[in-house]
């Protein structure tokens, strides 16, 4: 097993981590990658934000839409 993940590989694990429990090895590799990769850390936050946005959809209803 390769020790270092590429960002491309990390992306799948980040997304899957939202949908299933990652294995111990997967979690460890992802953690190591995120510790040194600002871009993937940013993407993790963005994927998590997508979830909050989707849960909040269709959003506030104060101003009616045209």
């Amino acid at each position, binding site marked *: 097993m390769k020790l270092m993940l*590429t*960002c*491309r*590989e990390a*992306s*799948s694990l980040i*997304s*899957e981590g*939202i*949908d*299933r429990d990652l294995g111990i090895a997967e979690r460890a590799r992802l953690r190591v990658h995120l510790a040194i990769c*600002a*871009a993937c850390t*940013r*993407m993790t*936050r*963005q*994927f998590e*934000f*997508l*979830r*909050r*946005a*989707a*849960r*909040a*959809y*269709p*959003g*506030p*209803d*104060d*101003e*009616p*839409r045209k």
Partner: protein
Amino acid sequence: MAAFMTPGIDPVELQKHRPQLVRFAMLQLRNATAAEDVVQETLLAALQSGASFGGQSSVKTWLVGILKHKIIDAIRKQSREQPLESGDEETDIEDLQDAVYGADGHFRETPADWGNPEAALNQRKFFEVLEHCMEGLPKKTARAFMMREVMGLETDEICKELAITASNCWVLLHRARMALRECLEGRWFAAGGAR
């Protein structure tokens, strides 16, 4: 007021929400007739069970709650009667990834800093952009994402309804997230929408 209607729920007020509810249903069902049907059922159920509306949430939130159940029922029915045809292209994520990652597997372009994205959740306009981005997803991808993130279902249920394997389901969800991330970045966060 007819006997079957509950005091406090104004049918005219309910109708005002119809367009939004239809858009919501369309995103997931991608079929105008099916979307109209679930919205019709939702409004009818709302009129008949107005008592369950305690006024603790907005009328829209309450209606959307009913609509979600009706959509899930419709999807279950649909998946029994006419499953979505499996488009291979939808479970293929390579093309999307090739655009984002170089041959070395690293980002071609670093994702932008979204600042404090939570502020967007108070803005009506943001949800219009999100809606537009979700409309741009392929049918099955959109359905998987909405079942997972809008309705909050677990992946095993989604796999079952979409008749796909768990790993295909994860790929669809990953694909949806990548596409939505990209779309929101271009149309909202980089466009200064957060201001």
